[in-house]
């Protein structure tokens, strides 16, 4: 947890105590706004070796990084869905980032991305993974894959597109190596600007960190008061955030000098 966030929480606790020691309603705590980040991770056989090794390492390092991204008044939760021959959640619910422990993943099997999309569409519900009262922001959804789906991803995507949380969620995708299909990933995110490619282990680690942190920062931004006299509607907020994410990701990719023409897997 960042120092700023710790200070903010400590201040809040102190002020709460000062306000009314004898308030029996203090027995139920006050919670801050929260944001859920969904990671959809391809764990098919083709991810074996350096790709999965790098991914595991960077995800372990990423958790402390994400702890710092939420604004001081936002709690961040993480949910990880892996897909290969089977689709599996790392935990049965989104976990507060402070409590999250990364379980190292291993690669095997085929790429059941369509099944993963379907599973995500079921779980992104008030009756399931999104049942926290404090949920105040549309989720961040980050897809990572190195290949083309081996199942009917379009059917899965259709199911997902009917989900309102997905519709307003901040979506981004990372293609790993040349087999990852940009068109298909853009279908998932809704824009090419929010799709990037990693061609080496170093790029993979770097991009995962940048994208996860950037999308979480934008996702947890309160944008409802941007107008001088009026709040923005949810659709305006979604469009503004998705556009901002696309711009920032493209700027980062350009400034880092990643060359998308690097031949396949030379860096792995």
């Amino acid at each position, binding site marked *: 947890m960042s120092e700023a966030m710790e200070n903010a929480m400590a201040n809040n606790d102190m002020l709460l105590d000062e*306000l009314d020691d004898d308030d029996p309603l203090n027995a*139920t705590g*006050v919670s801050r706004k929260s944001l859920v980040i969904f990671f959809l991770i391809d764990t098919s056989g083709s991810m074996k070796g350096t790709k999965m090794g790098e991914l595991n390492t960077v995800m372990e390092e990423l958790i402390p990084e994400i702890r710092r991204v939420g604004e001081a008044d936002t709690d961040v939760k993480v949910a990880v869905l892996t897909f290969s021959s089977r689709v599996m959640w*790392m*935990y049965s619910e989104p976990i507060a980032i402070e409590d999250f422990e990364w379980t190292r993943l291993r690669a095997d099997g085929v790429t059941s991305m369509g099944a993963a999309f379907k599973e995500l569409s079921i779980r992104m519900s*008030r009756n399931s993974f999104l049942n926290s*009262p404090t949920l105040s922001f549309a989720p961040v959804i980050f897809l990572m894959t190195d290949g083309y789906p081996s199942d009917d991803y379009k059917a899965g995507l259709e199911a997902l597109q009917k989900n*309102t949380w997905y519709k307003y969620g901040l979506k981004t995708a990372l293609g790993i190596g040349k087999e990852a299909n940009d068109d298909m990933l853009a279908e998932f995110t809704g824009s090419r600007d929010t799709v990037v490619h990693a061609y080496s282990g170093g790029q993979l680690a770097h991009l995962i960190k940048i994208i996860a942190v950037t999308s979480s920062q934008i996702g947890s931004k309160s944008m409802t008061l941007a107008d001088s006299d009026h709040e923005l*509607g949810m659709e305006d907020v979604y469009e503004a955030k998705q556009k901002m994410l696309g711009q920032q990701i493209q700027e980062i990719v350009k400034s880092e000098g990643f060359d998308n023409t690097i031949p396949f897997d030379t860096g792995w």
Partner: protein
Amino acid sequence: MQTTFQGLFHTLIGASHLNSGTVCQDSSDFQATEHYAIAVVADGHGSKKHFRSDVGSRLAVEAAVAAVSQYYTDPELFEETICEDPERVIRNIEKNIIARWDQAVHTHFREHPFTPEEQRPFTETEFAKLKLEAVYGTTLIIGVIGSCFTFGMQIGDGSLVIIEEDAMADMPIEDDETAPANVTASLCNSYAIDMFRSFFLPDKALAVFVSTDGLYTSFRSTDDFLDYHSIIASRLEKPEAFDRIVKRNLEKRTHFGTQDDISLSCAWDVEIMRNSLDALRQQVERNKMLAPLREAEHKARLQRQHEQRMRLIGEETQQ
């Protein structure tokens, strides 16, 4: 049969609205007669195109109170009818509320045409496309305790909690799955009648609470939210004294929680409440003990999942 009802209601402006100098978009009310009590809250949408939603929420609360009052013109007949076919009667009340609100919105607009200042944030084309009702868009949540039943209805986000005679708290209206964070069904929608959700309980509840989403979103869990209502119910014996504490707590919740406007309205039956005071206090004590157990159990479950997954990976690697 005649009964005595009491109630309390509060609307607090959200910390974020205070900071930005925008107006409170919530409204609330409580009314009681010898036959029924009604608690009602509404949350105006507040975004750019709903620039009169503070008025819209007030009109919605007024429409709800007036509609229920109209149905109670002949209390005996109403009670008989609603017990026979609650679904049909509640739907008719919903229609009545929509019609009243719609009429009130048009009357308000006729008396207060849009000002140049209100039009300024829009282009001419954007402004021409605005639907009048949308400008006043709001949610609405209503809870009613009658002589031998309890019912409620809501459109959009927000919560309705009932405390029954056995002191148990419950949320009888299911979540609206079509509404993700900050997207809500509205009284201004053309199909508003199909967006209402309702419940009917053929028993008289001890208390019914309605609140806008700013309250629910300040809790870590639904269990905490329900416990909060049990605590309030257990203190209603001296409402004048406790009213101040509730207001202070709501102020804290908007300041330290999601910073949204918060409205809470509550109606209760004085006699049932007095008779159930012991049960209520016991329930609050039970909740106090259960809360840390729930937390510990939750943590242990997650730890088990982590360990199981580690074991599974270990086994797969060995194979």
